[in-house]
């Protein structure tokens, strides 16, 4: 099961009506690498993630995880197969505490989740692991706080802890720093670097300094199609990229 690429997409496409949000995307994510996907708003990055995790059904193409075709699996099965994601829009269980949030993920794939006649004490043994995961992202002091009462940066950290609870081989992160202030971006970047050790990470990110510091390889998406691919130096010097994307960003800065 040690294929060179942990995740591959072949000819991946998705149509909404007559509009191709993603078209002919061929993607290879090398095992153990951090691979970034960038592109202007509406380029189709989130749609790509939704296709890869089968949240959306692809119109064309196939998805290969660890050498196996997962194109026909359910979203929940994709997670069980070792690929987990985070969402662009903050996705915590708002009325539950941070500890409970992580513990939900720890119950995944276990028979305990269906035991409606058992007291909560029966899963108390998961608390130790849940606390470890919270500590890992610096949330040990917020374990008992409802997710809705956490600061924005802490919510995103909680999401990462929840995703990590699945111990995924492949992790898809959709704009983990979106909407964050400067003071939060640095720690979350370090956190991603830390948790990506021993895993394969595909990350959508707008902040180019985060992209340049984290990623081994970058795919640029524009209007649903791949514009180019390479390392940061190659991509950032590409004329078309500068015109389509980077130029725009630099203007904005």
């Amino acid at each position, binding site marked *: 099961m040690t294929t060179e690429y942990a995740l591959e997409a072949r000819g991946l496409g998705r149509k909404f009506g007559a509009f191709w949000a993603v078209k002919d995307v061929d993607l290879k994510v090398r095992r153990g690498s951090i691979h970034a996907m960038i592109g202007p708003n509406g380029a189709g990055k989130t749609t790509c993630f939704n296709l890869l995790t089968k949240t959306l059904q692809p119109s064309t193409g196939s998805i290969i995880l660890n050498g196996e075709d997962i194109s026909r699996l359910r979203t929940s099965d994709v997670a069980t197969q070792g690929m987990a994601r985070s*969402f662009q829009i903050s996705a915590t*269980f708002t*009325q539950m505490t941070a500890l409970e949030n992580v513990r939900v993920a720890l119950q995944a*794939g276990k028979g305990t*989740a269906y*035991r409606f006649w058992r*007291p909560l004490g029966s899963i108390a043994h998961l608390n130790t692991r849940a606390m470890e995961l919270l500590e890992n992202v610096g949330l040990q002091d917020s374990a008992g706080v409802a997710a809705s009462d956490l600061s924005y940066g802490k919510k995103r950290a909680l999401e990462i802890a929840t995703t990590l609870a699945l111990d995924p081989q492949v992790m898809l992160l959709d704009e983990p720093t979106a909407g964050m202030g400067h003071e939060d971006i640095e720690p979350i970047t370090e956190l991603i670097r830390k948790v990506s050790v021993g895993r394969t990470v595909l990350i959508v990110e707008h902040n180019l300094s985060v992209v340049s510091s984290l990623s081994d390889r970058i795919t640029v998406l524009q209007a649903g199609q791949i514009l180019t691919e390479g390392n940061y130096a190659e991509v950032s010097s590409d004329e078309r990229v500068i015109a389509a994307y980077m130029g725009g960003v630099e203007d904005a800065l």
Partner: protein
Amino acid sequence: MRIALVLLGVAIALALPFFVYPILLMTILCFVIFASSFNLLLGYVGLLCFGQAMFLGLSAYIAGYLLKTTGVSIEIAILAAALVSALLGGFVGFVAVRRTGIQFAMITFAFAQFVYFMLLQSEFTGGEDGMQGIPRSDLFGVVDISDSRTFYYFVLAMTALAIFAIYRVIHSPFGEILKAIRDNEARVESLGFRPERFKIIAMMISAGIAGFAGALKATVFQFATLTDVSWTVSGEVILMTLLGGMGTFTGPMVGAAAIIFLNDELAQFGEWALIAQGVILILVILFLRRGVVGEAGALWRRMRNRNKG
């Protein structure tokens, strides 16, 4: 503190039939169970079932039919009716559970209307006249509990059992997944769960407990009528839950008690009961968005935080 409160509650519950008409108390208890079963779905899974009365009414007829035509003891009749109700809940869930929000509500509503129609047409229900003369058969086939005050204690014990069952479900590993689905279903799915399975099981449990309430109610009144299956009851249980506080454990119980008590008080004034319900609903929506118990809890937390500094 908590234990003292519970003990006080138990003492009051035991003494009440000496001061209040037992039938009224038993009606309240049946609706306490019924509203709590509804709140299990709305408050803890985020599913608005606008047809909860189908479980209440169908079970009332089934329990009544069993008690009238067979010699089974009362607890068997009630459990059998609850089981059939749970199966109906599972079937409705199977069809409806992929939909959310208003669509889910409408599908459950359609099912309830269908059940109403079936029961209206069936012979065994007595149609418009309802089913009369349901006996209070002996408990376990030997203990005579037919006297009103004795029967009250039986209903009280059954209520405690049902409420404990709901408490268990909410505070279980399964219950945690339900709450997670309520908060963010897509996220639960992305973590590797099949939310629809959890929702179907929750529907079965909720329907089973609602059916338990209906069967109990049939033995309290000793008759079953189409009113129990009607959409006004499905609506009333929403009002009870919102009034008490959805997603709070005790809220629906308080709401049920308040509405049944009020209906009883206002019954002599005819339409006034309905008007009062309307006014209460408006007041709750405007001023008590978390319901009586929800607002009280929020107030209590605010005061405690202030005292802490």
